[in-house]
């Protein structure tokens, strides 16, 4: 019963909260969308925390995404053991580096008085949930070896079943507790997304890569059109 709720209902609830929350926040309070960076207040520790964290998490998330989107491809890569070791080894190294980054970021929030003063309640919640996510992920990777291989028969079909609106909870029930926690915590993060500083992910300024350097606005022309 609990598992049906956690894996069959909760994901949809979290996802719905995320979408509605994001639209609501964007429409009512665009001003609040920001990276709320604290580099201005403290930069030495931030460097060692922020850089490994951000690059690590981007690559690891991309890895997860590729796994979900192209399970067959991943299977093909893993066909040769050496390739499997390299893939998993890289993943683990990245996760460990981002864990170090995250821990440094957490300590920094406590150590620097100025950064502490600008820390919100949601920042604390978010850091704890993120830490739980990273730790459960790393433990799964270490103790339940070759996740990139077994997920093809378990979590990935489960994910696809979510998308097709026919959640196959059975896939998840059999998995180890920590791995289950990793999944549930992920849905929790989705739910927290619109109400935390995570929204800055949506602001990744890709358009900068091709826009002209200068921006000039004609108010009169704009409004006359």
């Amino acid at each position: 019963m609990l598992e049906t709720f956690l894996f069959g209902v909760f994901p949809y609830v979290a996802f719905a909260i995320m979408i509605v929350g994001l639209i609501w926040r964007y429409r009512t309070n665009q001003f609040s969308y920001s990276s709320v960076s604290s580099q201005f207040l403290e930069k030495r520790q931030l460097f060692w925390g922020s850089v490994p964290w951000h690059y690590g998490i981007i690559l690891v998330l991309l890895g997860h995404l590729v796994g979900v989107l192209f399970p067959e491809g991943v299977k093909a890569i893993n066909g040769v053991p050496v390739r499997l070791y390299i893939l998993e080894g890289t993943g683990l190294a990245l996760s460990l580096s981002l864990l170090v980054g995250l821990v440094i970021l957490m300590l920094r929030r406590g150590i620097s008085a100025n950064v502490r003063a600008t820390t919100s309640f949601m920042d604390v919640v978010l850091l704890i949930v993120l830490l739980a996510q990273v730790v459960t992920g790393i433990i799964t990777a270490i103790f339940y070896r070759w996740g990139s291989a077994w997920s093809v028969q378990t979590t990935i079909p489960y994910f696809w079943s979510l998308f097709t609106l026919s959640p196959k909870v059975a896939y998840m029930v059999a998995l180890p507790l920590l791995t289950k926690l990793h999944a549930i915590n992920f849905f929790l993060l989705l739910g927290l997304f619109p109400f935390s500083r995570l929204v800055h992910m949506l602001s990744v300024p890709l358009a900068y890569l091709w826009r002209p350097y200068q921006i000039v606005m004609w108010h009169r022309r704009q409004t006359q059109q």
Partner: protein
Amino acid sequence: MDVRAQLSMVFHLDKCIGCHTCTLACNNIWTSREGTEYMWWNNVETKPGTGYPTLWEDQTKYRGGWELKGKALRPRLGQRLGLMANLFFNPFLPSLDDYYEPWTYQYGQLFSAPQADDQPTARAVSKISGEFLNVEAGPNWDDDMGGSSVYARNDINLAELTDAEREALFRIEQMVFFYIPRICNHCLNPGCIGVCPSGAIYKRAEDGIVLVSQEKCRGWRFCVSGCPYKKTYYNWKTGKSEKCILCYPRVETGQAPACFHSCVGRIRYMGVLLYDAERIEEVAKTPDAGLVEAQRSLILDPNDAAVIAAAKKNGIGDDWIASAQKSPVYKFVKQWGIALPLHIEFRTLPMLFYIPPLLPVLASTGNGKYDLSKTDFFGSMESLRVPMKYMARLFSAGNEEIIKKTLKKLKAVRAYQQAQSVGIVTTSQASALLTEAGCTADEAEAIFRLTSLPRFEDRFVLPPYHREEVIGLTIEPIKQKERVGFGFNQLPRRGP
């Protein structure tokens, strides 16, 4: 020709008394909130000095402005991809230490301290963390050359001076300084816009004011590095960048900006300039020595029929053209050529111009006495108290000829006026100087009048904005009636 209008400024440095009234007027209206305490949209610096934030002119440190790489003009901070790679940590961002940690005092202690043998004290506490603070520096720590061995001596504009020249400058009887009030230059080729990944900063075509959209800004902070003048600031509370808005709510309603209006020395002038937007990039690529002249060539003659026609074609109204024709800024910058941009080698084409100071430059000391009477007026320009090289670093990208020409004219105007009123200088001496400076008596008279006797409406020739029409075009009047103010109105509260 693509004619645009710019609300532009001139500061007459000889008249600045360094009182900081402008700074406080601005602070009272715009930056007395949490997160903005340390932002001085207007600040007044003593030169020589390191300015605010410390060493802002040193672009090897902050990477502001543009650099010429071959034929391309690109942000010194990095090209697009390189810039994005630094999204999570910008190595060139000035931090709190480069400004100062805002503080207040525990005044409450003075009343609430328990009875004791000693006087109660109000200790300094940080305005950010609320913890006790050992105040080590603040804004204008080097006012009037205070702590000059740390500050003035590290002024990077002194780099090209010989050791002897530098020593001379700092000999106590020789010591000389002047003030530079600074606000955002509302540049034609702004560095801040060029590096903003979110595209939140923009220049208003109608009047050239450069603004940060508070809704679009995502706090990536590149503008703080990218502005070579360090005139965008990061609000540590709201996570948004903010900068001087040239008091647009005031100018739109026909009032001079607060810093202008309150200026005690009446050093400030404001008026419309028409310029050719088509040539901005070409001009920004001019080699250093030619930059000042090139920028002047961008500014168009508002009485020229062709310019007027092109301006009208771009929707610039008759009243704005008429205002441009009366602009004091046009006179100082283009007609008389005595107002110069600050550090134009940063290539942002700043639209705030300075008339370099003459007084401290000309005076000499002999027999321990401060001496103006020796009429250094006829002395050679090379033996100035502030080396020409230094002034050229500030105002003409190192081109000493331009400074010489400017100071000569200012000197001639002074001599002309002296001949008329006090007679230290004979009329023939004065007209010799005028000829040398390429200035007519009429021009000298006009410069004198606008410098010394201007009325309020001579200093600030503000164009009519037709604000009511602008609002009508952006928001329906009926809807507007239901709202308060113009545009978006909400408390600057940080997101969760």
